[in-house]
């Protein structure tokens, strides 16, 4: 049954794109019902997988070239089943939320068509059992993110942000594709199931390069340093889309890819360490930027980069279960946070947290769920983020001391900026007129409540309280899965989270003055000048080369062409009248000529 899961949202896409204008408001329900059905089938697949273990269904053969058949099919194992559940649940809730959030938009049905295609691509990506099929859906996800980030393309900023996301991820995709081909030439197989017994002996360097190139694709998709620049700009899209991109679909794909190809990285310790280091850099860098940003959505965007970095870090130190566990919990509470932010923006029509404050009194449900999401992200027990972050810290503690310190520092910054966001938005005195602010409609608050239930409880399945059920589920072959419980790490994790929150409370509620960090503050506010550096290193030289080429073309090449043309012009005066200027006229001559030619040829053949 699993192979039909992506078909439901895809069908919704087809219906909405062709009949959306006529369906109007109903297009939302087509989309919601489709992903609801996908969710039900996913749940059924989950139970099936639990009953008969993993399955792989080969659907057909695409091309058979010189003995290497390219088969495509779906794979059903713990990882893909987990992703199926996360994607379908989160996507369904976000679509319900969008009913209220996108109400009255002129391209309402178009929106639901795109979001359905987005879901379908992500589900296909998760189910793919080989690199080529995964890459096809990978690009589908990229395309949909472009369409949705630039959904309000009348705004130049949105159009540019969409383009930036598309091009930046494409840089990573190019590396990914080269990596796939390199791997094909090394192993003569593109199926993920063959990665488990890949033999790197004798070809260590090439395998490492292949692993790094594949990781480069994940870097682009998951917005890791140095390709993280597109994600904050992607905030130009509708907030519900930000929630989908940041939680369930786009950026999760990169982490999923690394998890899916994990055997390849395990066989290359150097590549694995590189994954961890890139994750660490992204985590720390993005978390530090998030502490000073003033845009409610951008704070969350940098938080996503940072949390994805933590997942990569977890995977990089060998914590397969830790990384995937955080991927799952993060999907729920980050979707929740973005939807809360959307609800706030819906109420106050501003994204600048400096103009907010005191909104808790106005919007009780949004406020409560926002606080739950923030606490989950900050890592306060017993909410979801605490358990998964704890797992990552534990893996890092055993795997890599340096990365452990990075993870601890990131956790502290995370707690600090989330508390800052909560205090500035929900509490304190209103810093602008919020008398018109009111709670959002039920279609928007309902998903918030459901997601906050997930944000509270979903972490428990991987906690010691439930006997690390998630770890046993995702790594069934580890036998009696002995996950140690390190109370030292847990206390440390709680302590840094509380320190961060208390510090934010003192600074933003009690007016504690921090020592001046003038230079550092400016550096963070300008996002480490990464965009400016790219502008100088890549964009400007490229423009200079283009200008040079244009000048050469204009003077030299055009000069030759124009000279030739003026000679021909004089000669051509003789044949001018034949030309009518209508291209279809010429085509008609051509077709008539061919028909006459064929008739003559046919006549000759029959005669002899």
């Amino acid at each position: 049954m699993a192979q039909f899961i992506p078909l439901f949202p895809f069908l919704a896409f087809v219906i909405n794109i062709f009949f959306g204008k006529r369906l109007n408001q109903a297009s939302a329900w087509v989309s919601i019902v489709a992903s609801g059905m996908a969710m039900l089938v996913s749940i059924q697949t989950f139970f099936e997988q639990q009953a008969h273990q993993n399955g792989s269904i080969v659907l057909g053969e695409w091309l058979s070239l010189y003995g290497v058949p390219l088969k495509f099919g779906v794979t059903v194992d713990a990882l893909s089943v987990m992703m199926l559940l996360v994607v379908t649940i989160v996507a369904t809730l976000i679509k319900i939320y969008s009913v209220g959030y996108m109400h009255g938009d002129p391209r309402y049905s178009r929106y639901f068509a795109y979001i359905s295609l987005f879901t379908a691509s992500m589900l296909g990506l998760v189910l793919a059992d080989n690199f080529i099929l995964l890459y096809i859906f990978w690009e589908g996800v990229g395309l949909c993110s472009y369409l949705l980030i630039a959904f309000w393309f009348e705004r130049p900023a949105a159009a540019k942000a969409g383009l930036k996301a598309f091009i930046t991820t494409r840089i990573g995709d190019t590396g990914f594709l080269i990596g796939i081909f390199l791997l094909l030439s090394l192993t003569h197989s593109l199926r993920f199931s063959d990665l488990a017994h890949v033999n790197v002996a004798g070809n260590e360097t090439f395998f490492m390069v292949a692993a790094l190139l594949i990781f480069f694709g994940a870097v682009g998709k998951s917005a890791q340093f140095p390709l993280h620049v597109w994600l904050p700009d992607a905030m130009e899209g509708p907030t519900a889309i930000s929630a989908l991109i940041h939680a369930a679909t786009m950026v999760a794909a990169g982490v999923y890819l690394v998890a899916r190809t994990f055997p390849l990285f395990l066989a290359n310790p150097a590549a694995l360490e590189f994954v961890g280091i890139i994750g660490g850099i992204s985590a720390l860098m993005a978390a530090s930027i998030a502490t000073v940003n003033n845009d409610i959505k951008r704070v969350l965007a940098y938080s996503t980069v940072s949390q994805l970095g933590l997942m990569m870090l977890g995977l990089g130190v060998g914590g397969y279960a830790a990384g995937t566990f955080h991927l799952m919990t993060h999907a729920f509470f980050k979707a929740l946070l973005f939807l809360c932010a959307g609800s706030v923006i819906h109420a106050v029509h501003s994204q600048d947290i400096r103009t907010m404050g005191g909104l808790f009194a106005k919007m009780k449900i949004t406020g409560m769920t926002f606080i739950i999401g923030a606490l989950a992200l900050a890592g306060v027990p017993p909410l979801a983020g605490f358990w998964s972050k704890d797992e990552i810290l534990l893996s890092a503690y055993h795997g890599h001391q340096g990365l452990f310190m990075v993870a601890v520092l990131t956790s502290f910054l995370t707690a600090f900026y989330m508390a800052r966001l909560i205090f500035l938005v929900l509490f304190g005195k209103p810093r602008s007129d919020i008398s018109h602010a009111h709670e959002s409609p039920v279609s928007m608050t309902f998903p918030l409540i459901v997601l906050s239930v997930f944000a509270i409880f979903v972490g428990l399945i991987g906690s010691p309280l439930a006997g690390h059920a998630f770890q046993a589920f995702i790594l069934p072959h580890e036998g009696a899965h002995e996950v140690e419980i390190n109370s030292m790490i847990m206390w440390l994790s709680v302590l840094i989270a509380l320190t961060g929150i208390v510090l934010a409370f003192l600074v933003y509620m009690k007016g504690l003055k921090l020592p001046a960090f003038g230079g550092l503050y400016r550096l963070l506010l300008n996002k480490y000048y990464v965009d400016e550096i790219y502008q100088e290193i890549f964009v400007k030289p490229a423009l200079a080369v283009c200008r040079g080429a244009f000048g050469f073309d204009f003077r030299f090449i055009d000069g030759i062409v124009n000279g030739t043309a003026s000679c021909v012009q004089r000669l051509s005066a003789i044949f001018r009248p034949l030309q009518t200027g209508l291209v279809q006229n010429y085509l008609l001559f051509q077709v008539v000529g061919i028909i006459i030619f064929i008739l003559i040829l046919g006549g000759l053949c029959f005669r002899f």
Partner: protein
Amino acid sequence: MISLNHYMFLSAILFCIGVFGVLTRRNAIGILISIELILNAANINLVAFQRYLGTPDGLGQIFALFVVAIAAAGSVVGLVLVIAIYRNGKNIFVDNFNLMKW
């Protein structure tokens, strides 16, 4: 049972529709679409001949893929021309556009 003739007949119909479209459409986009029909008619032939006449491994398929790729490039050039025409005349009816003479 579908025989080679069926494929050739389908391909011939597609080709004729394409030629008719190219010759009669006023809309430049319509002409581009019709050209795609012609190319795909050829593609059907290529793949069908490979299947039925037992040409060496994959040749027809590869050829068809080449045609698809080059058709994509061709369409790009075509669409660029359409945009250029539109900028000049504020419409894309090819019969309004007969400036390309002498």
